[in-house]
């Protein structure tokens, strides 16, 4: 049977990777890091294409076993992990970051679980609780490393998948409302306005729920949940968080408060991007990059290098290419031949979108510094391989969309 290839997605990915290797060359000039990245890229693209030829049902069958293996490897990281903080497993010469692969495995497991349920069942609490549990297990293990950014990304993929699988938006709001409570009651964010902001949120959300559902018991329950989420946040901030954790959050809110310490990364990244102006300083000409003012230039802050050397033109190009890829991934989700494949596509698309938003947001100061890599562009083999495998899965879904 002839296998159709989604050339546009493959080309977009290849362009992105080639662009990434080029920018790594500039960001870490003289280190030869770009050669390593080019080697990983070659391997990762081959792996992505190879995924297309895997028999159709195999991923469905393997979803739970892979998920189990990933959970075990995450436990192994906690026990035998290397690096500071310990996020890697060394097996012989190979050094892997299991949390990267766990993203795909978890999305696959959730896709299988939700795909096996009917849309109606997903509206019920049992299926939602189990799906959340599937996400929370790896989330907790990754958060323990600690790697808060990656941990949150599991949740970020889950919510759109629940929506896709049939969960009602109002219920999704119920699910996420406590998180919003955390945000709206978070004192450093609102200064001494926090009580007012939080009270407003509680009142408005309760009124909306009451108007939509007209069931006082639900409204009161949600009110209780949201109130306690907000109060717990306030309590934890005051009594539980360690000094450096608070510092990190406060620095995100006000980088200038510690310009040489925690705030350094954000300030220097903004200077790099801003000073790039409309057309940039030119390839290899970024002074923030080449004189070391920009930290982690070839990994977490590769987007800042693009902004500095290629300017607004470069950043718009990169974001457009990402948006195209996200659209293409979602589109593949709409033409998939089964629920599992469709959900898998949506999960992977969400994961990609989340990474791009958090990483780029970090470099321009709208998100905190989390250490999430920018897909396809940041230096790092595990991340590149994971993202290519994800695209490989989508190519696979596209190629097999007419099979039943």
């Amino acid at each position, binding site marked *: 049977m002839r296998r159709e290839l989604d050339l546009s997605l493959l080309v977009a990915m290849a362009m992105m990777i080639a662009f990434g290797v080029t920018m790594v060359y500039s960001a870490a000039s003289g280190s030869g890091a770009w050669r390593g990245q080019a080697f990983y890229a070659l391997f990762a693209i081959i792996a992505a294409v190879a995924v297309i030829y895997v028999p159709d049902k195999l991923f469905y069958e393997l979803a739970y076993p892979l998920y189990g293996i990933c959970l075990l490897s995450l436990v192994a990281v906690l026990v035998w992990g290397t690096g500071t903080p310990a996020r890697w497993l060394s097996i012989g010469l190979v050094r892997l970051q299991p949390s990267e692969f766990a993203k795909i495995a978890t999305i696959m497991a959730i896709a299988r679980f939700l795909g096996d349920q009917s849309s109606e069942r997903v509206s019920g609490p049992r299926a939602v609780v189990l799906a959340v549990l599937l996400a929370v297990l790896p989330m907790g293990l990754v958060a323990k490393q600690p790697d808060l950014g990656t941990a949150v990304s599991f949740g970020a993929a889950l919510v759109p998948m629940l929506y896709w699988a049939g969960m009602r938006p109002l219920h999704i709001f119920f699910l996420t409302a406590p998180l919003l409570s955390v945000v709206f009651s978070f004192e450093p964010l609102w200064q001494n306005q926090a009580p007012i902001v939080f009270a407003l949120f509680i009142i408005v959300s309760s009124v909306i729920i009451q108007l939509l559902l007209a069931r006082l018991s639900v409204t009161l329950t949600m009110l209780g949940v949201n109130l306690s989420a907000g109060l717990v946040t306030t309590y934890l901030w005051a009594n539980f968080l360690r000094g450096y954790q608070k510092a990190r959050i406060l620095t995100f809110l006000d980088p200038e408060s510690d310009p040489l310490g925690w705030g350094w990364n954000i300030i220097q990244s903004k200077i790099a991007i*801003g000073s790039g102006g409309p057309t940039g300083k030119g390839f290899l000409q970024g002074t923030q990059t080449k004189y070391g003012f920009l930290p982690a230039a070839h990994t977490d802050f590769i987007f800042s290098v693009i902004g500095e050397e290629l300017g607004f033109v470069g*950043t718009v190009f990169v974001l457009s290419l990402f948006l195209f890829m996200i*659209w293409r991934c979602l589109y593949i989700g709409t033409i998939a031949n089964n629920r599992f494949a469709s959900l898998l596509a949506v999960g992977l698309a969400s994961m990609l979108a989340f990474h791009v938003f958090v990483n*780029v947001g970090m470099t321009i100061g709208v998100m905190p510094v989390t250490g999430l890599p920018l897909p396809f562009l940041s230096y790092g083999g595990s991340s590149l391989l994971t993202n290519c495998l994800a695209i490989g899965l989508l190519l696979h879904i596209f190629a097999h969309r007419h099979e039943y």
Partner: protein
Amino acid sequence: MDPEVLEDWARKMRGLMVLAGLLFAILLLRLFHLQITTADNYAKESEDNWIAQKRRKAPRGLVLDRDGEVLARNRAAYSIQLTRGSREDDAKAIEALESATGESVRLGKRGRERTVRLKRDVKFRTVAIVEERLRDEWPLGIAIEPQRLYPAGALAAHIIGYMGEQQDDLTSHQGRPYAVGDYVGQTGLERVYEDSLRGWDGVDYVEVDVRDRVINEHPFPDRGVPPRSGRDLHLTVDLDIQRAATNAMPDSLAGSVVALDARDGAVLAMVSHPSYDPNVFVSYGSQAERQRLIQDPAKPMLNRAIQGGYPPGSTLKMIGAVAALENGVTDTLSTFAACAGSLQVGDVVFRCANRDGHGELNLLEAVETSCNIYFNHLAKILGIEAWHDYGSRFGFGLPTHIDLDPSEFHGILPDRQYHRERDGWVTGHLMNLVIGQGYMLVTPLQMARYVAALGNGGYLVTPHLQGKAPDPVRIEGITDATLDIVRRAMYRVVYGEHGTGKRAQVPGIEVAGKSGTAQGSRADDDAWFVAFAPFEEPEIAVAVVVEGGGGGGSNAAPIARAVIKAYFDDQAQRQAVAADSPNNKRRGI
């Protein structure tokens, strides 16, 4: 798939794309703000990062004596600098430095500046350790800074003064800011001439990396301002005379010697003993030594020449003599009430140094033998007002306006009012004052100016250490005849049969002077001698005081002699050089 399902998916996809579009719109808006709207600000901040303004410290002006011998110059000092990162990184770098050098390092309070000095003026061993073992791994560097050096050490410490570290960066003078850690003149000439010595700092624009290491020294050849060095200070002081005066002082006793050009007030030598090494104030490691100096009970930091207040003893008698002559109380030849060795004024009996009395005396003899009773008699007739008037005309109780210390001690020239405010007026006070005792206090510099005026025909000079001499002022109310008599009397002090200052004689030069033995607060009397020479056309005026030195004629006069001799030896040498030089030029040397 079921068309209904496909329809549902397509609808949900549109919803998710709207969400993704919104998120990306946030990013794009923010990027537009950074890269288009406020790009200029960030471009400026980026430039501030990699184009560092490095101050180029202007070399401080030298201080030279009148023969060109260097009294203050600059040397290179090495400092270890830290380019700051996070607190943890700073602490680690400091720890590495401490363990490599074995010395403790303290980091000051956290400011905004990126590069801070950790250690100043370090030994070369430390420089080598940082340069070879630490520099590549840690944000440490070496800076070379000019540091003051006083080659003459203690010899001219009180004239040159010393410098100290600027503690804050808020002060600036004449639009020239000081940075924390700059050395600024604290005392002496270093302070008075700070503005002309320090020069104008320049600025260099250099290309630096995040560790403040210079990548390119001259990225913009046309930008940057070179430093303008400070003006050299050419002093009137002659180190040979200064040295002779210092060597002539007894090691164990404190005191002071001032030598002025009798004609214009140029300071030839100014010694305050004991002295100190001003280098300890510009050497970073000498904190303990500085503390010791400041607390030393012998007060080596005090410039006794302008800050020391002494009773002048008999060296002041010429004031009484001048006042008496001008007021017609006596003349040269009249002999005056016999000195019987003592005189009763009121309840108090005043005694002469010669207990048997000098017998009948004229003024010349009274000065020559330094007879107290003679001057007591003069004063009784003269009165406090006339005496005080002439004391004031010779500059006592008044600043000399030397360009060394705006807060020089003015001395005390008591008048009737002064005593009334303390213990009431009795004529007995005048008996003390006229022989330089009582509440009378002078500085050695005032005495040198006074003796210069006696020698040079009545001109009050302004003592100065550099530059053009201020015009001398003719003291009013003194006739040449009066001066002539007093000068002859002072000549007899050195050459007369009964002269008290014979030990001031210099072979080949005629010296005139006056001794003094003053009873101060110390157990032993202060020895004084004031002199000018040559007698006919005075060139040098000298004042010497030795605290607790005993008899002025025996102990202070030899010091005056040494200074006068050094001056004329030096003059002879200068004339020899001047006579030689035209020949040298002709021979092309």
